[in-house]
């Protein structure tokens, strides 16, 4: 097989085409991307768990962030709440303890809660969650660790296949907000979208992918 065929058939789909790795491959300063396959614990809406898979399949190699790896999916136990949270918190904490930054992709907002507890464990202090719609972000020191919450339900109805609200942000507005988030972004969660798994979902998938790229870029930047 030639190189082209190898690229087409041999590669494992990963977020934004970044290399696939494990915890042992992770070094301080890197961005660890992980899928979160759970959508029944906070603001349940079936289908949000498919976002990670959709974004991996839609990713194309070529524009991959230089300093990120795809860790696969975090282990989840959606039917055992306590076990689920302790497992996700432990896995997230393991990433943050290395000094890497983490983004959870897909699922519902319960991943954000687990990230918050993990960050608190690692830093020893409360880590504020900054919503992508803005808010308290403006007054933060650039060294203040923060978690970025990217709720894709904030997208306006035109951008998603099954809208839950008429008004909201465009992907460009969301990306601009992500880019200008102040503080030291140590982790992020991109969640809230149940992607249509047919051609109707292509717009929202492309939008979500661009937003994930912006989140990864912001995480690579660290202290803003």
């Amino acid at each position, binding site marked *: 097989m030639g190189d082209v065929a190898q690229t087409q058939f041999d590669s494992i789909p990963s977020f934004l085409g970044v290399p696939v790795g494990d915890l042992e491959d992770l070094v301080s300063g890197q961005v660890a991307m992980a899928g979160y396959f759970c959508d029944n614990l906070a603001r349940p*809406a079936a289908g949000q768990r498919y976002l990670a898979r959709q974004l991996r399949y839609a990713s194309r190699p070529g524009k991959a962030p230089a300093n990120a790896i795809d860790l696969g999916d975090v282990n989840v136990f959606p039917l055992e709440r306590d076990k689920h949270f302790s497992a996700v918190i432990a896995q997230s904490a393991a990433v943050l303890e290395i000094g890497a930054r983490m983004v959870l992709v897909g699922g519902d907002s319960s991943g954000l809660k687990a990230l918050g507890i993990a960050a608190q464990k690692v830093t020893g202090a409360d880590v504020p969650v900054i919503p992508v719609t803005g808010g308290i972000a403006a007054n933060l020191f650039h060294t203040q660790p923060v978690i970025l919450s990217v709720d894709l339900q904030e997208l306006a*109805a035109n951008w998603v*296949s*099954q*809208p*839950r*609200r*008429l*008004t909201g942000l465009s992907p460009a507005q969301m990306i601009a907000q992500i880019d200008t988030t102040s503080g030291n972004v140590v982790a992020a969660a991109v969640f809230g979208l149940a992607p249509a798994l047919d051609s*109707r979902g292509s717009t929202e998938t492309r939008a979500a992918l661009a937003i994930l790229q912006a989140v990864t870029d912001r995480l690579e930047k660290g202290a803003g």
Partner: protein
Amino acid sequence: MNNAQKRFMTTGYGGLPFGEFSQCEAGNIGVLGVPSEVDSGPRIGTSLAPDELRKMTGQLGTDLPANGRDLGNLDLSGDWSGVLMQLVTQMVDHDIVPVVLGGASDVASAVLRALPDLPVVAAMPLARRDLIERPANTIWVGLNGGQPADVWDQISQRTMAWRTARQLDEGHADTLDMPECAVLWIDISVIDLGHAAGAVGLNPGGMKPETLVSVIGAMSCSWQAIVITGLAPARDTRGMSELAAIETLNAALRNG
């Protein structure tokens, strides 16, 4: 009442409990589905609207800014428009706001016949003769240019206020003189099909859903009754039309 849907739904529109008119208190709303079907034209499907709206508010977890009861769907056998008129009159007499989920435009006609003296705010693309002939002036929201000349003449002679979709997009709603209380009729065909496809009427150049929500939400008027017609949910697989209806209704209830 045809209460078959109660067997399948535990809560009604916007999480309201199903109940009877007698369980409503003054200041409450009474949501009533009237699943009539359009009788002509290629675009049908309004009979599905009441139950689809209930289903969608359940999926969205919509919080209504008002209390009350969902009275289920009206049984359309027999003289249903007479029964509807009677129900609407009784509710208004008891200071309960009827929120009527059509159905076709015949649902709104019955509601308006029950409240003949109240002015109407009509969000619809084409002016209707029966509205022009009411004693109180109608305020027209989202009219397009497709009215017959004699209808325009009557609107003009009676100095009725009207705004086109374009005017509303440009922010010309704030100059409308609103009556203290009125009936609100929203025909979903007022929305441009390109934005929300679930309407029985074709209205290119019509309103954007978000414009409709903001215009109705900005009207400081005490709504005595609200009726939604012309929604054909099966024609809109994205659910934008139901979403527009739900958000507009919420905006109206928040203010009125």
